[in-house]
Each structure stands twice: as C-alpha cells, then as structure tokens.
C-alpha cells in the first residue's frame, strides 16, 4: 500500500533526524543515554505539529528544523534525565485534521508532550481537546483567541503563544515614536482574524498617542495573494502619510517590491509590523531604509553577547543557508521550557513527573532561550520581548536589517492577564 504524503514527509523527517544524529555522533562521543534513578528507560516522545505547506510553510519549516536541531543536541548530550528524545511529526493542516492528529499523537503514539501549531483557528480547536485529554500542548504561534478576546483564560495543559495583536501594538508605539507628525494612515492587512485584529489594535494604540491621526482606508487582500499591483493603485489613491501592514510571510517581499517599483515609498512612510517573518527576502535593492520593521519575538542580529543566539544562528545558517525567522525561537523555547520543567520536577520529586506536574512548573517558568529569557505567565501565555526598528542597508547581507532597534517588553505590548479587555487596557494607558 502506498504511503500518504504526510507519512512520506514524516519518513523523510525521521530519516533527517536519524542522519543528523549519526553525524552528530561522529565527531564526539555521544553521551550514553542512561536514565537517572526513578526515570523510565524508554524515550521521551515529543509530538510536533508544524505547518509545512501553504502560507505557513516559511515559519513552519523553520520551527520544524529547529525542533530537529534541538532534539539532536539534547540527545547528543544524553537526553532529558537520560531518556532520549524521540520526535513524532504530524503536519498542521486544517482544524479537523489537527484535532485528529493531536488525538493520535496523544492516544496512539502516547506522546509526553505535543509542541507546535501556528494557526489560531487550529489552536481554538486543539486547546479544549488538550485540556480534555490531559495532554500538554505547548503552542508555537497558535493562540486560543477569538478576535482579541482570550477564550481559555485558565488552562492546565494548554500553553499558548503571545496575544496575536502584540506586534501591531508594538508597531503603533514605534509609529508614534519615529513618525510623530503623520496625519493619515492607510492599512493593508490580510482578510482574516489576525489581519483584522492587528489593524484594529494598531488604530487604537496610534490614536491613543496621536489623537489627530486619520485612518483613511483599509485594504483586505486574502491570505496567499501573490500580486498586489491593484492594491498598490489603491494605496496610491489613498495618498496617506503612512502605510501599515501586518503581512508576515511570502507576501511581504512581493508587496515591498511592487510598492517600491511603483514609487509608493517616495510619498509614504511604512510600518511592517510583522514583516521580519520573511526578513531575508527583503533585499536591499527594493527595500528602502527607514521603514518600521517588526521581527516578532526573535531577531537574528539582536546582540553578539548572548552565546545561545550566536551559536544557533551560525548552526542554522551552516545547515540551511538561511538566517532564521521568529518561529525558530517559539519552537526552541517550548522544548527548552518543557525540558527544564521536567528536570525541575525531578529535582523535587525524585521521579519522572506526570503531565499535570510538568504543567504546574511550566506556569510562571523563565528559561534562557534564543532571544533572551522567555517564559510562561501564570495564565499560561507565552511572555517574551518583541524586536522592531527602522530598516537599514548598513550590514554585510543582501537584505535589510534594522537599526534604532527597540526591544518591546511584554508589559508594553501584552494585556496584563488573559481575561483582560484589550481596548479597556489601552484606554487606561498614560500618554
């Protein structure tokens, strides 16, 4: 019987991990996986659910690569408390499929923890299931938000990503800071909940700092659009001082390129709140300097003084000839947080912890991750810094990076607790 596409990808992924482990074991003697006292001898089964096709393929692939790299490194160092890590991959596709695959990873594969998912639509479906099954789910990017409202303010097993609108809030703060004199803004965002929420949140925050600003138009290309020439004609018609977009994938370079070719940035400034999601595609030839560019929660050039970042970026580039995007740190953090939570439990209990016990330790945990310390708040939402700045050509690459970098903290851009009302929270800010 022929293999399905998913099985084939899984097979290739498995082979890649296996080959990587073999190679890793060549140069250095691999630490013997000898479980600690009171720890089961079998492998730790980690389920991973990356999106490898469609618009989420860019961040999904990056996250899956990182997961494999992390597993190789941890196994080379002896595993988690001496147990080797074994990855089981199920692709993220539709909500219905994700639910079935999550159930399969839990009940058939008997995973100790499941990481992944990027779509909020899928997160909304999987979150309640994780609670029902008592399965630890550490999301990469998927939230359990409906609009800007958190649907699961209290969870035991579901650990969600940052609020969707965080980067739009950061973008608006920086717009007010870098371009205080703008009077008109036009938005171009994808026609789905993330795009709409970002536009609403951006307007609310910018209006807070700059009450006279006018939002003259909003364009809603569908997710996956690959030609923006018609939208650029509409942006020109709007004739605004600033263009705001929350594009985050393959559409970023297309919009940037076509807008530059049509001379749009001669008149208007721009804020790409999440454009760093495909940062290496923003070539200097068509990306002007001085545009606000957000890298989400991971910037590959954040600093030279955080060895974890330097080591990872070098290893990632050596392996894939690409500079990593933000999803890599979502992937790295959730795994590292799980590992440290298990080890912390063990240091207290002297045995391998249950999923519930791991969950309790994950709440409020802080671990060193690729972009500095990152953690989970008490409401089980990921808490991390966001990186934004103005595009610059002053670097050795053929793509732009940012200067005047701002590190936006969770206190600045995330609601203080999951159940808080976003717009009431913004209204309560001091100007």
């Amino acid at each position, binding site marked *: 019987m022929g293999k399905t596409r998913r099985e084939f990808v899984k097979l290739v992924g498995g082979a890649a991990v296996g080959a990587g482990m073999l190679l890793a074991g060549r140069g250095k003697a691999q630490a013997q996986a000898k479980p600690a006292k009171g720890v089961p001898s079998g492998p730790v089964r980690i389920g991973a659910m990356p999106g490898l*096709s469609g618009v989420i*393929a860019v961040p999904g692939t990056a996250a899956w690569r990182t997961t494999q790299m992390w597993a190789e490194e941890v196994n080379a160092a002896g595993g988690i408390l001496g147990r080797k890590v074994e990855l089981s991959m199920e692709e993220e596709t539709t909500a219905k499929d994700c639910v079935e695959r999550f159930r399969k990873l839990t009940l058939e594969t008997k995973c100790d923890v499941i990481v992944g998912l990027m779509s909020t639509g899928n997160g909304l479906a999987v979150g309640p299931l994780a609670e029902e099954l008592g399965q630890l789910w550490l999301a990469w990017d998927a939230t359990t938000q409906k609009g800007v409202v958190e649907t699961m303010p209290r969870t035991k097993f579901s650990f969600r990503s940052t609020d969707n609108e965080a980067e739009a809030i950061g973008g608006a703060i920086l717009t007010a800071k870098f371009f205080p004199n703008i009077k008109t803004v036009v938005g171009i965002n994808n026609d789905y909940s993330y795009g709409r929420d970002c536009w609403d949140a951006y307007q609310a925050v910018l209006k807070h700092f700059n009450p006279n600003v006018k939002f003259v138009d909003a364009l809603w290309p569908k997710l996956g659009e690959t030609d923006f020439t018609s939208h650029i004609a509409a942006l020109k018609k709007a004739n605004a001082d600033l263009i705001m977009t929350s594009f985050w994938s393959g559409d970023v370079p297309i919009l940037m390129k076509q807008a*530059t*070719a*049509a001379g749009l940035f001669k008149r208007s400034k721009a804020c790409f709140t999440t454009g760093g999601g495909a940062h290496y595609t923003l070539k200097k*030839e068509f990306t002007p300097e001085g545009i606000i560019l957000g890298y989400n929660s991971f910037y590959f050039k954040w600093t030279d003084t955080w060895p974890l970042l330097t080591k990872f970026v070098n290893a990632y580039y050596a392996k894939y000839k690409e500079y990593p995007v933000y999803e890599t740190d979502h992937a790295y953090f959730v795994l590292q947080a799980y590992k440290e939570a298990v080890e912390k439990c063990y240091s207290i209990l002297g045995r391998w912890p249950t999923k519930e016990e791991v969950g309790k330790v994950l709440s409020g945990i802080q671990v060193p991750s690729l972009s500095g310390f990152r953690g989970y708040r008490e409401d089980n939402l990921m808490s991390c810094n966001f990186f934004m700045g103005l595009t610059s050509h002053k670097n050795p690459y053929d793509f732009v990076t940012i200067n005047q970098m701002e590190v936006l903290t969770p206190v600045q851009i995330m609601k203080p607790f999951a159940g808080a009302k976003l717009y009431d929270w913004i209204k309560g800010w001091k100007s």
Partner: protein
Amino acid sequence: METILNILFSGVFHASTLFLVAAGLQVVFGVQKVFNLACGTFYGLGAYFGITVVKCLVEHNFPKALFIVPLIAAGLALGLVVGPIIERGLMKFVYDRDETFQLLLTFGLVMMLEDVIKFIWGTSPQSMGGIDMVYGQLNVLGATVPVYNLVVILCSLIIAGLISWLLMNTRFGRIIRATADKREMGEALGINMKVVYLKVFTLGTVLGTLGGALVVPAGAAVSEMGMDLIVLAFAVVVIGGLGSMKGAFVGALIVGVLKSLAISTYPEMEMLTIYIIVIAVLVIKPQGLFGGSRV
C-alpha cells in the same frame, strides 16, 4: 486622472498574466476537452525556474539589462520539456475516460508539482531581488508605472498576437481548429491526433510557464502561487467562454481591470464584484461572451 491611470495599468498588468494562464487552459480544453487544473502550477514552476536561470546567469556577470531574454527562454524551455513529459506520461491515459478522472488527474498533478517545487526550491519565497528595476519607472500623466510591468503587458500582447496568427494562418492552426470542432473528422482525414494532442498540451504548458517566468521579476515566487491564479482563471474562462482564445483575452481584461477598480473603490467587494459578473454571464449567456467561437 492619475488614479484612473494607476487603476488601469495595474488592472491590465494583472490581466496580462491572467490571460497567459487562461489561454493555456483554453487551448487544452478547446482541442483535448480536458479541463487542466495544473495550468496554474505550470505558472508557479515557470516562476521558480525563471528565477534560477536568471540568478545563475547574473552571478556569472550576465548583463542585468538583458535578463528578459534568458527569462523568456527559460519559460519556453521548461514548458517544452515538461509539457511532452506530462502529456505522454500521464494525460494520454485519460483522454477517453470520464471528465471526473481527468479532473482528478490534473488536480493530483497540482499537488505533486507543488511538492516538487518545495523539494527543489524549499518553502521560502524566492525572488530575483530588484532586477526588474533596471528598466526604471515611467511617469504617465502623473502616474508612476514600472517599465517592467509595461514589458510584461507588451509580451502578453505579442503572445496573444502570435497565438492568433498561429491559429488562423498556419497549417497547424487549421488542424487545431478542425479537430476542436470534430475530432473524428480530423482522424478520418489522416491527422495524427497523438501528435496534435502532444503539441497542443505543450503549447498550453508553455503559456503557463512563460506567464510565471514573465511575472516573477515584479514579485516573488511562493509555492502556492499557482492555486491563487487558477481560481481567477476559472472566472476568466466562464466570462470569456470555455475553449475560446478571444474569450480568454477579453475575460482576462474584464477580470483584471474589475479587480483593480473594486480594490480602489470598495476593497471588500473585490471577489464579489468579479463573481457577480461570472454569475450574470452564467445566467444570461451560459456559453460565455465568445463561447460560440472555438479556439
């Protein structure tokens, strides 16, 4: 005036690539009666291959200003290679089968070729950088138009003219028109249908790959780019008339300009506007505007 020109230029630019894909769809359906869903994926393949060829040449000091030449050659060459392989390797087995089999096969091709793209080029968007900007911009009555976009429009017009000439003034064109009307009669007159089908399918593939190669310098290639276009190509063939080249040309213009106009006036009505026209055509003139005239 500036706004009108911007809308018009962007609409016609979009129409020009839409026409190439729709024309590929039309020519194959007109003669072979196969609704080839994979024509959008040929467009994606052409885009990726065009990037690879041009990047490789530029790295070896090929003059940037002349990149359009190898780009067109890449689109043509890819179509000429891929078309016959798919026609002989897959399509020939379903000509006499039910239309459902044909649709399933071409849909399977879409899935397979998307995976081929990911296997060869990965999932990251690919672009040629700003190479198209070597041609600069043109100011037309206050509207700034990238010259490369005008080159793409011109290329599409030339291709439309060439197809028209091919169909009306060559022996091959006459054979195509004859077999599109009555395949059995063509066979009875000694026409080798195997060769005709091979050539026609290759022509359809070339139109797709060429379209992808031409448009990619103005944007970037992403693995799902073909799927995006095929949906609009459906609208074009319904409006223009299934199987009609003239219909593909006029339908693409209507869809392209309408889309651009809707985005500039009522952006949320973009698809609604197009499909109101599609539904109106289906109700009033189900065969499409040029549905009577074959190929």
